[in-house]
């Protein structure tokens, strides 16, 4: 069947009343957590994971898709109205958006962010719809060595791109890899790194590590360096809608933002920070009213980065769905969610579970429409969430975190791990270690190991097998480039 027919089937699944309900729940939750500080999409999905066991994979992923996109919408609202970007991807939005709100054009900024997110989200989802099956097809030709090379690329790019220092990025990654080998070795049945503790035989749950790093680490860190300030929410002024001129000024930035965001999101290590930054710089260069940048706020500086941000979020799904390769913390927890349901994303999922994949993709279109409706007229209601006092908000996050961890397996050992890993999360924040590489190492490490050992075993241990196919040579060369490029650039700059 062709892609279009499959997509129609997907809509059939996604439009089922129960699934529509879950899409709505996800969109509402996503918008809320995008607005609230201290809780992001990855943490939310991790906390929801135990609950979804009784729901079934299709509905669960439709809800997660709503959370993923909704967080992007919510993040832009706080960036514009109180100048605190909820997610890394909405940092650029805060620059111009908050200035616009201050000069009485908050409504236009919110509108261009919401419509831009919608336009970018829909175009990017369409690109995902038609690109994913072909990439999945390609992946059928991948040998174990190629898959191993792919994981190496994901590792190096995540460790290099995220954070400020390569050494610290790689330390995070290798801690993740070390945590990933804990438990019974799947190929030989040997217990590894358990030190006689039976609670460790099943390995470290990604949920436990993620919740501890993101929620516990954050709570302790923010408490220790709490900035007492009242968030003064700027009133939404300037009518509910954009003027004709503002529409005209937003259109091209939306499209350019999408064009930058989608491919960058799909690349390992692309994330959402770099594409939004690129889009902002580009719009600043191209804008005819340069004097508005940094003064009263230029609408192009909101429209472009917001579109790039949403397009990147959709782009992240491409390697995840087609190759089973997560490139962000959120993608890592989505991969864990697939594994929870006994599913392995990758080329085979398109043939074995078309209902799930196409239902998920169709629900991305529907979620975008829902979010536009939820966010544009109702933005005043969402902002009320910021009235929750901070002490009680962070206390509530801890309660949900402990339920999330206790609910996974009801083990006191996991709760003890929560303290230790949470403290590690605190130290990582104080000394500026990136967190995402730990999660990528933890979830991708076992896959990398499996492919490496399969490849080597087939070649009687000859490591040359790893660079035998053209695909693996190309991918490993790109990984090396990632590693060496910053060093070479620094040398060149010194020489110049």
């Amino acid at each position, binding site marked *: 069947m062709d892609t279009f027919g499959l997509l129609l089937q997907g809509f059939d699944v996604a439009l089922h009343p129960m699934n529509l309900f879950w899409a709505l729940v996800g969109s509402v939750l996503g918008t809320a957590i995008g607005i609230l500080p201290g809780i992001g999409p990855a943490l939310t999905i991790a906390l929801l994971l135990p*609950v979804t066991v009784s729901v079934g994979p299709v509905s669960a992923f439709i809800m997660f898709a709503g959370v993923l996109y909704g967080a992007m919408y919510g993040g832009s609202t706080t960036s514009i109205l109180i100048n605190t970007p909820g997610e890394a991807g909405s940092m650029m939005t805060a620059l111009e958006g908050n200035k616009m709100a201050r000069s009485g054009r908050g409504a236009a900024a919110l509108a261009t962010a919401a419509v831009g997110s919608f336009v970018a989200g829909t175009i990017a989802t369409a690109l995902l719809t038609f690109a994913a099956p072909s990439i999945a097809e390609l992946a059928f030709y991948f040998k174990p060595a190629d898959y191993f090379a792919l994981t190496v690329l994901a590792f190096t790019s995540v460790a290099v791109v995220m954070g400020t220092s390569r050494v610290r990025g790689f330390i995070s990654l290798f801690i993740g890899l070390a945590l990933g080998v804990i438990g019974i070795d799947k190929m030989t049945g040997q217990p590894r790194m358990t030190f006689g503790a039976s609670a460790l035989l099943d390995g470290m749950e990604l949920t436990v590590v993620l919740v501890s790093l993101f929620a516990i680490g954050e709570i302790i860190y923010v408490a220790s360096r709490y900035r007492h300030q009242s968030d003064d929410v700027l009133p939404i002024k300037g009518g509910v809608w954009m003027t004709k001129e503002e529409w005209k000024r937003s259109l091209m930035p939306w499209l350019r933002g999408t064009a930058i965001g989608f491919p960058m999101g799909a690349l390992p290590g692309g994330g959402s920070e770099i594409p939004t930054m690129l889009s902002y710089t580009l719009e600043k260069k191209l804008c005819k009213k340069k004097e508005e940048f940094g003064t009263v706020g230029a609408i192009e500086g909101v429209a472009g980065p917001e579109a790039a941000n949403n397009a990147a979020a959709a782009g992240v799904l491409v390697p995840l769905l087609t190759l089973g390769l997560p490139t962000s913390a959120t993608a890592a927890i989505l991969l864990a969610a697939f594994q929870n349901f006994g599913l392995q994303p990758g080329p085979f999922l398109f043939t074995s579970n078309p209902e799930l994949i196409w239902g998920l993709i169709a629900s991305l279109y529907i979620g975008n429409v829902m979010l536009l409706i939820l966010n544009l007229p109702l933005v005043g209601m969402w902002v009320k969430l910021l009235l929750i006092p901070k002490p009680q908000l962070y206390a509530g996050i801890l309660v949900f975190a402990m339920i999330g961890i206790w609910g996974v397996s009801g083990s006191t050992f996991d709760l003890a791990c929560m303290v230790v890993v949470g403290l590690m999360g605190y*130290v990582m924040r104080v000394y500026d270690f990136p967190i995402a590489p730990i999660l990528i190492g933890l979830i991708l490490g076992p896959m990398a190991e499996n492919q490496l050992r399969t490849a080597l075993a087939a070649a009687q241990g000859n490591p040359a097998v790893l660079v035998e196919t053209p695909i693996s040579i190309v991918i490993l060369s790109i990984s090396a480039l990632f590693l060496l490029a910053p060093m070479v650039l620094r040398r060149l700059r010194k020489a110049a």
Partner: protein
Amino acid sequence: MADPEAATPGARPWWLGIAVIILGCVCLYATTTLPATAQYAAIGPGMFVTIAGGGLLVLGILLLLQIARGERFEAQDAENAAGNLPMDKRAFFTALAATIVPALTMETLGLPITAMVSFMLVARAFGSSKIVIDLLTGAILGTVCWFLFSRLGLQLGGFLPLAGF
């Protein structure tokens, strides 16, 4: 992880590099307890552990070298937190205590009471002084969550195991 109190950003946090090296050594030590019989052509369950441990060892040494050269560590900015603020030790330990409580009380006292105590402690760490209201809020939140999530199929243990509920 080693004691986070040992250094403040700006100083030379040697212990960070040493902690990473120790983690690496723990991994390498773990490989020595694996039986060699499970190997085939030097590829066994220990190979990847050796890679992870060796990597951490090398990276720990690199980090020590960076620290010796005066690497700067700047605390991350987060929402509601500023990296350049001095560390509030009392708030830190109160929040830390809140996260230790569940491991001690969850099994015997159940979720609602655990949530009540932890909730109050975190709120206190953030400067709330309304102890009774916070305790009440935490207890209500814990109770509502217990009923809600138990109905959704989560195994959250007894409501108040000590009293036999």
